């Protein structure tokens, strides 16, 4: 009888984080990169909730709320930046950005 243990959830979180990180590295559309950041944040949330269940404490779930709020704030500011960049050069590709180059 196989039982679903904590390791399984942690492995899923690791796989999800890796997929998000690979996407962050290989995609060039700023919007898609934001979605990949969301994937990584969600894998961290999964780790928090798994730890919360494993140790029988509620603090892990509280931390998820803070991650959620920070993610929402980050998406709001990031999308505003993308929109204002798009207005200037009508492209959301990060490779074409040269405005903050030293």
């Amino acid at each position: 009888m196989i039982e679903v243990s904590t390791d399984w959830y942690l492995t899923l979180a690791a796989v999800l984080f890796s997929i998000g990180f690979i996407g962050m590295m290989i995609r060039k559309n700023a919007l898609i990169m934001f979605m990949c950041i969301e994937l990584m944040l969600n894998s961290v949330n999964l780790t928090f909730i798994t730890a919360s269940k494993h140790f029988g404490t509620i603090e892990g779930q509280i931390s998820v709320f803070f991650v959620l709020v920070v993610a929402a704030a980050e998406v709001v500011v990031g999308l505003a930046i993308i929109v204002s960049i798009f207005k200037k050069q009508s492209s959301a590709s990060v490779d074409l950005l040269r405005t903050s180059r030293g």
Partner: protein
Amino acid sequence: MLEIALFAVPAGLVILGALIVVFAKNPVHNSMGLVLTLASLAIIYITLNATFVAMVQMLVYAGAVMTLFLFVIMMIGVDKPEQTREEIKGQTLLVSGTLFILVGIISYVVINSGFKWDLYFPAVEYSLEGTPDLIASTLFTEWILPFEIISILLIVATAAAIALAYDTKARKQK
């Protein structure tokens, strides 16, 4: 058996959605893949006794954040193909190769170290249900200071978004 199915089916959907996010060409498809991932994660949260977090995940992430993403996709358009020219020669290959080597080394070390972490940190016998009652009573007593600080962060983010998106040039021309 049911327990394994309740883990495996949502986990498969999570990974499928994540792969759609990374590899789909159309941004609308990417965001739909993200919805799939977030909704399946909510199911996993329920199996981990975090019912309230699962509901918030559905409302905030799959609802509000995804609507925001779709709005921005609508504003900047999806008909433009992504530019794939490499600024540095072979950058995609270089990054993927480095990543695979790094992950390989870390996995090899972790698997062969023989460290049994659940011996040092054993799982508890009882299970704790993450009800709104329990979460609120902890959040508003022990965690009240971070809670207040995060409200400041939200206000700053809102003000920043308005300041960034506010078109001053178009305003002056009127």
